[in-house]
């Protein structure tokens, strides 16, 4: 007679236990801090946090501040252009690389390497290249194109576009990698079927392959929009929000207010608005993502 099977229920506690530390830490780190920040935004905090309650005063100040609206408008311009151009360029590069090019490995690395570099590192080079007196404009003048003008960095109306250029440079390669991965994941026979159906290569991409990348578009969009919203060192390194505050974005606004201006309350208010914006984009996505991924 074999010994009776021990009557043990499943061990539901072990997976939970393993997840617990990360869960608790994230709860504190993410939601605790969001709450803390939310509270500060309702306080009179200036140089250091204090807890004198002032209601929505900081928000009133924030929404009355011209600089804030410049920052928001810049985020709009930057967000749209940065996301649009990164996607466009990334997709173009992915398609070009998808044509069985011999040097694919090397080219991929070249397009991808900006990801590896922090703007603390490349900011100097970029500032230099974009500076009319030293960089591209200067170079063109030296080459004899005297009328060439490229002074966006110092033009308050254009400065934000230089940030876009640098941002696209940094992110396009990553987008390319994502799209390339997506393209490689598409069943080969679909292309063959389309060839038999009489479609030319550009049409195959346009009508079939690119539309099939829809899920990749969504994840890329998500990644890029959060880069756009969080973009901080990009702006800091390139223009520091200047000239004046012409290229300020919410992230730099928040930083300046909270840390160099001694208006922590105002900074916290702007951070809350930023978080709300992020949440408005991300939460619906996460929701749908988690719903559709129910175990099949």
């Amino acid at each position, binding site marked *: 007679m074999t010994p009776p099977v021990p009557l043990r229920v499943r061990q539901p506690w072990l997976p939970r236990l393993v997840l617990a530390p990360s869960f608790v830490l994230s709860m504190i780190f993410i939601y605790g801090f969001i709450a803390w920040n939310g509270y500060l935004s309702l306080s009179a905090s200036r140089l250091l946090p204090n807890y004198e309650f002032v209601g929505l005063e900081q928000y009133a100040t924030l929404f009355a501040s011209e600089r804030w609206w410049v920052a928001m408008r810049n985020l709009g311009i930057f967000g749209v252009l940065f996301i649009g151009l990164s996607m466009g360029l990334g997709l173009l590069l992915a398609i070009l690389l998808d044509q069985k090019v011999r040097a694919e490995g090397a080219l991929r690395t070249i397009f991808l390497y900006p990801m590896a570099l922090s703007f603390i590192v490349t900011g100097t080079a970029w500032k230099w290249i974009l500076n009319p007196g030293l960089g591209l404009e200067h170079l063109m003048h030296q080459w004899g194109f005297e009328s060439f003008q490229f002074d966006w960095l110092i033009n308050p109306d254009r400065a934000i576009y230089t940030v876009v250029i640098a941002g696209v440079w940094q992110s396009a390669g990553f987008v390319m990698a994502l799209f390339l991965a997506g393209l490689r994941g598409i069943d080969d026979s*679909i292309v063959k*079927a389309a060839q038999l159906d009489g*479609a030319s290569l550009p049409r195959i991409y346009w*009508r079939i392959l690119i539309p099939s990348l829809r899920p990749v578009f969504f994840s890329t969009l998500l990644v890029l929009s959060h880069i756009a919203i969080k973009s901080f060192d990009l702006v800091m390194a390139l223009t520091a929000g200047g000239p004046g505050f012409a290229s300020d974005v919410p992230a730099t606004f928040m930083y300046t207010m909270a840390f160099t201006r001694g208006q922590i309350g105002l900074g916290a208010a702007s951070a809350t608005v930023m978080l709300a914006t992020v949440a408005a984009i991300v939460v619906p996505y996460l929701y749908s993502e988690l719903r559709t991924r129910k175990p099949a």
Partner: protein
Amino acid sequence: MGALSIRQVRKAYHSLEILKGIDLEVEAGEFLILVGPSGCGKSTLLAMIAGLDHPTSGSIHIGDHDVTHALPKDRDIAMVFQSYALYPNMTVADNIGFALEMRKVPRAEREATVARVAKMLQIEHLLQRKPAALSGGQRQRVAMGRALARNPKLFLFDEPLSNLDAKLRVEMRAEIKLLHQRTRTTTVYVTHDQVEAMTLGDRIAVMKDGQVQQFGTPDDIYSRPANRFVAEFIGSPAMNFVEASRTGAHELQAHGLGLALTPTQCQALQAHGGSTVSYGLRPEALRFAAEGLPGELGMVEPTGPDTYALVDTPLGRLTARVPGKVHQRVGERVHLAWSPEHCHLFDGQTQQRIA
């Protein structure tokens, strides 16, 4: 001049020769089956007919045209892929209409065609769905619909049923057959399932290692396999083989037992050299009898209408296909009998058919 001629087609990837000189002539309206084990080059040959790949040497003709180097879109071919290759981003209707759109067929005409095809395949209610929302059988029909919308010179199918479950496979098989009976479009159909090959084909090309082993009607292939490979590959359960040696001009012996032959077989054997012979018997040629080859019942597999009985005999383990049920029990002694005209003889060395 046939509808499709494949002449001395060879294909090598680097130094590896995949196709070793294929010759096939397909008549207009014929249903040709390419069958063979995995990796024998069926898909490669099909890709070359479609123009998705190009032969290293040899030529391919469709009707009167040499299309060896023509682009796929200029060949007027429709193909159903093993994976269906439906365009995931388009609705069923767009999938079916895509080829027409590419050929600049006016919208109204296109829609009429899609509707007609959908009706024929009974997928009208699915037209607005995306492929992801279809079941396996439905996808298979859409893939067929895509091909049918075109009314091409040639249909190519690459194992279109291999992803389906047994039940659906039988149904779809019948549908494809009916379809062909209706449209009479020349068709090349790849499979490695020998039942599909037998039931669908007007003619069958059995391939192995990049070579055609036999090219003939299903009946030819089944009743007069050209060599031992074909004999073993076609038919389920597979043919039983007994290795026999010649003890006289027209006498065969295996494990000390003489094997009976018909006069025709004797003649053929006599005309043939070689010292060993493979003696093949299909399971349905064997029957239980009161006397004959004695053996012990090793296993019984009832399938419903028939039962497969595995019998251990002095000639080795033989499978018999018995109609209805087997009443003997495993381990019991039984006797197997067969008429010599049902046996197949192959040369022991070359494996080629003798009779």
